[in-house]
C-alpha cells in the first residue's frame, strides 16, 4: 500500500493526464457529479456517486459499428474500428466496479464484442472506496463491499491523504509510473476507515435486504407471481432506470442514412420501451407488465441462472433515486420476498 498526501492528489492527476486521458467525477452545471475529462483546474467531486454510471466508458450510449457506401448497385462496407487510446477512470465506486464484471460476462464471452473489448483493454479503473454511503445503497445485498472496491487500483480516503493499492498488473504499472508521488504505508488507516464505513452500512435501511425469493432456478415461480401486475401498474415505460443502471447492457442496432452513406450504429435500448425487440410479428411483450417483469426477471433470475448465480444488479441505488414514479428493484425484491413461500 502506498500513500498519497492530500496535497499531491492533483499532481497525481496531472502525471496521469500527461500521458493519457483521465476521467473523474466532477460537479456539473446543476451540481451533480458526472465523469469529465480532467485538465488543469478541474476539481474532483466529493459526492457519493455520479448520476450516470461508469459503464459509459466501456459501453457508450451510442457508437458507430460500421459504414456503408452505395453507388449504383454496389455496396462498400467500411470497417470503422480502430484501437482506442489508453485512458484512466478515477473515482469509480465499488458498485460500478462490480458492474464491469457483469458487463464482461456478457461482452467478453464468446462471441466477444470487439468494441467493448477494445475499450476495456485500454481503460484503467481506479476505484474509490465509499466514505459516506447513502440510504439508497444496497451493494452489500450482492456481496459487494463498498469499503473494499475492486478495480486496477483501489483508493481509500484516510485522515491526511489517500491510500492506494494496486490490484492488477495495469494498476501496478500506473503506480510505478507515478511512484515518486507516493510514500509507503501500512493498512491500519485503511482498516479503520473500512470498519467505520461497514458500521455505517449496517445501519442503512436496506442493510437487511436479501435475495430471498429470487435467484437462479426460480424462473417459473417468479415469472408467474401475481404481484407483477400491481408492481408494474404505474410504470411509465421510460428508460430512466435502464439508462442510469451500470449493468443494463441491451442495445439496438440502427442505420442512419447520412445522405452520402449509411452509418450503422448501436445505442442503448431499454426493455421498458414499447418497441423493445419489436419484430415483424409485433412486440413479444405487448404490455408494460411483461416489459417490467422482463427487466427484473433478467437481473434477478435469468442472469444468475446463466452466470453461476451472479445477480445482474450491483445495488448502486441509482434507479431508486431516479425513477420518476419511485418504483424500483428494491420494492420488487421485497414484494417478491414477502409472499414468496406462500
Amino acid at each position, binding site marked *: 500500500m502506498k500513500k498519497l498526501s492530500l496535497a499531491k492528489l492533483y499532481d497525481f492527476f496531472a502525471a496521469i493526464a500527461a500521458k493519457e486521458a483521465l476521467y473523474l467525477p466532477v460537479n456539473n452545471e446543476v451540481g451533480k457529479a458526472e465523469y469529465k475529462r480532467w485538465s488543469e483546474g478541474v476539481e474532483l467531486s466529493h459526492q457519493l456517486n455520479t448520476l450516470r454510471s461508469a459503464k459509459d466508458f466501456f459501453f457508450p450510449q451510442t457508437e458507430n459499428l460500421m459504414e456503408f457506401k452505395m453507388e449504383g448497385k454496389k455496396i462498400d462496407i467500411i470497417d470503422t474500428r480502430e484501437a482506442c487510446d489508453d485512458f484512466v477512470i478515477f473515482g469509480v465506486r465499488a458498485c460500478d466496479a462490480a458492474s464491469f464484471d457483469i458487463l464482461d460476462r456478457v461482452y467478453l464471452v464468446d462471441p466477444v464484442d470487439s468494441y467493448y473489448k477494445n475499450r476495456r483493454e485500454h481503460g484503467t479503473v481506479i476505484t474509490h472506496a465509499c466514505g459516506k454511503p447513502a440510504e439508497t445503497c444496497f451493494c452489500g445485498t450482492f456481496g459487494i463491499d463498498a469499503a473494499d472496491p475492486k478495480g486496477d487500483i483501489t483508493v481509500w480516503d484516510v485522515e491526511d491523504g489517500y491510500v492506494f493499492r494496486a490490484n492488477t498488473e495495469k494498476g501496478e504499472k500506473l503506480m510505478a509510473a507515478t511512484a515518486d508521488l507516493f510514500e509507503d504505508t501500512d493498512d491500519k488507516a485503511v482498516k479503520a476507515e473500512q470498519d467505520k464505513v461497514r458500521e455505517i452500512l449496517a445501519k442503512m435501511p436496506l442493510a437487511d435486504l436479501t435475495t430471498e425469493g429470487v435467484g437462479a432456478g426460480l424462473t417459473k415461480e417468479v415469472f408467474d407471481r401475481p404481484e407483477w401486475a400491481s408492481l408494474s401498474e404505474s410504470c411509465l415505460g421510460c428508460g430512466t432506470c435502464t439508462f442510469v443502471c451500470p449493468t443494463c447492457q441491451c442495445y439496438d442496432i440502427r442505420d442512419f442514412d447520412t445522405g*452520402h452513406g449509411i452509418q450503422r450504429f448501436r445505442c442503448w435500448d431499454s426493455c421498458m420501451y414499447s418497441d423493445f425487440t419489436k419484430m415483424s410479428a409485433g412486440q413479444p411483450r405487448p*404490455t408494460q407488465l411483461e416489459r417490467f417483469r422482463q427487466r427484473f426477471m433478467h437481473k434477478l433470475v435469468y442472469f444468475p441462472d446463466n452466470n453461476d448465480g451472479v445477480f445482474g444488479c450491483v445495488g448502486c441505488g441509482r434507479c431508486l433515486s431516479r425513477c420518476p414514479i419511485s418504483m424500483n428493484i428494491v420494492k420488487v425484491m421485497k414484494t417478491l420476498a414477502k409472499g414468496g413461500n406462500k
Partner: protein
Amino acid sequence: MQRIGVFICHCGTNIAGTVDVKAVAEALGHEAGVVFSTEYQYMCSESGQQLMRKAIREHKLTGVVVCSCSPRMHEATFRKAASLEGINPYMVEIANIREHVSWIHKDMKEATEKAIILGRAAIAKVHLNQPLQAGESPVTKRALVIGGGIAGIQTALDIAEAGFEVDIVEKSPTIGGKMAQLDKTFPTLDCAACILTPKMVDAGQNEKIKIFAYSEVEAVKGYVGNFNVSIRRKARYVDETKCTGCGLCTEKCPQKKVPNEFNMGMNNRHAIYIPFAQAVPKVATIDADYCMMLKTGKCGICSKVCGAGAIDYKQQDEVIERQYGAIVAATGFNPIDAKAYNEYGYATCPDVVTSLELERLMNAAGPTNGTLLRPSDNEHPHTVVFVQCVGSRCTETDERGKPYCSKICCMYTAKHAMLIREKYPDTDVYVFYIDVRTPGKNFDEFYRRAVEQYGVHYIKGMVGKVTQNGKQLRVQASDLLAGEQLHIDADLVVLATAIEPDKTARSIATMLTASMDTNDFFTEAHPKLRPVESPTAGIFLSGVCQGPKDIPETVSQASACAAKVIGVLAKDKLTCNPCVAQSDEMLCNGCSSCEKVCPYGAISYSDKEFRGPNRTTLIRRVASVNPAVCQGCGACTVACPSGAMDLKGFSNKQIMAEVDAICQ
C-alpha cells in the same frame, strides 16, 4: 423498388440553352431505381409524349419524372400521357428546370447542377409515391353571380340561357351597375340605357334567374360543385312581393333632402326611393338613415299612400342559405375619390367634376335633365378642360393613385369631348393627356374624329394646378410638344379619375378563398390561358373585378365566364382532388387538434374497436377525413402531434425525401 423513367425536356433552347440536358439525363440515370433516362426536344409535344409512353411500355416503368417546365404548366399533360399506359397519374412527378432553373440562371454549370438536384428530389419523391384514386362529388346545378352590373347580368343571362338556375346578389336596390349611370357609350355613341335596360328586364323576367337585390353575401362554405352561401337580404322596409313600383310613395315622402347617389350626389332624392325609372326590380326602398318614421316613429306617409300595402317598417334583415355549384365574382369598380387631388381643386371648386359626374350632367335623366350646366351656377360652360390619367399610371410610391392604366378614360374622354362639341359647338374643349390609348375596334378612328372632325384641342401635357379664379377656373398646364406653360381659363374641368375595384371585393375574395393582386383585382388562374377563372376551383371572374375593361370587353368576358360556369354545372359529378388528408387510425389519439384547423369541416370522429394486446379489445376515438370535402391544404397534418394525419401526394416522408435530396 420503383422502376423510374426520367425524361429531360429541352423546351427548344428554353432549357437546353442553359442546362446541359445530356449531362442531367446521364447523372439522373445513375440514381437508384432509375431504369431509363433520356432527353428530348419538347416532352410536351405529341412525339415527346409518345416517347414517354413507349419507354413506360418497354421498360415497365412504375414511376415517371419529367424535368421540364413548371408543373403548373404540364403536370396534367404528363399525368394523362402516363395514365394512358396504365400508370397511375400520381406516379408522375415534375422537376421544374425551366422557370426555376434555366430561365433564372445564366451559368451553364450552375444551372446543370441545380437541374440534377431538382431531378433527384423528384426521383426521391416518386420512390415514395402511391397510386391515388380520385373520388367524385355531386354538383349543385345552380350558379351564384355576385354583382348585378352589366358583367353579372350578362353572365347570368348566358348561364340561364343554357338552362341552369342563376342567382344574382346585388348590394344596391337595383341591378344595372355603373353602366346604368352612363349617358352614351363609345365608340358608337348609342345610349347606355337603351342597350342595358332590355338586358335588365330580361334578367328580371327570366325564370331561371333569381335576383337578390339589396342583398350581400355573408359567408361562403364548401367547394366547387357544393358551395353553401349565406346571403343577407337587407331590410328594404318594403315588401318586394307587394310593391308595384308605382312610385307614389317616392313622390309623397316628406324627406326630400337625401343626396341622390345615382346622380353622384348632384341632386336629391326622397327617403323612400326607386333609384331610377328602369330599375330592376322596380321596387321602392326606404333609406333607413333618413326615414323619419324609422328614426323617430313619426310620419308613416308612405304607408298611408301605398295602395298595395307594401310598406313594412318592422322588416328585418334576413339571412338565407342557398346552395351553388359555381360562383361568379362580378363585383365591378368605382372611380377613385378625387378629393385627394388638391392640385385639381376637386374638393374646393364646384366646377371641377369627375367624368362619371359629367355623364350624369349630360344625361336626360340626370340632375340637369341633359343640359350641360355647370354645378356652381347652372350656367352653360364655354370652355371645358379635360384632365386625363387622374390617379392612373402612377408610380408605385404614389399613395393616392394606381400604378395601372384604367384603360377606359381615353375613350370616354374622347366621347365626352365629342358630345360637347356636337351639342354646343360654341364650347372650346381641351384635353390634357400623357398618351392617348386607343387599341380596340373603331377606337382610334373615334379619337381621330374627335380631333379632326370636332376640333377638340388635344394637348400632350400635364395639368399642374386648377384654382378658382372668380367665376372661372384657372388651369395651369404644360404643353410638352410646344415646350411651353399654358394658362387656360375654363368654366368646367373634368377629371378622368382612375377606376379601382369595389371596396367590398376584398372581403368577398376572402370568403371565396380567391386570391387578389396588390390592387385588389381578382387574380386569374392563368393570365393568358385561364383569364376568367380564379385559381380556386369553382370561382369565376366576370368584368372589371379582374382588371380594367370597357363594356364590350366586359360583356365578352362575362359570356366567357358563363361558358366556364356552364362547363361545371353541365357535369353531374366532379372528380375530386385525390391529394387529400388521411388519418392513420392506429396512430390517432382522437384529440381533435386537426379538426380545429380544418377550414372545410372535413374531419369527423367516431369510436372504433381495436385489437388490444393479449386478445383484449380497445375502443378509441379516431378521426376520419371526408375525401370529398377535404381540399388538401395539409393544415391538419401539422396540428397532429402523433403524425397520424398525413397528406396523400405530399406526405411527410415524401417532403422529407425531397428535403434530403436537395440538401445532400
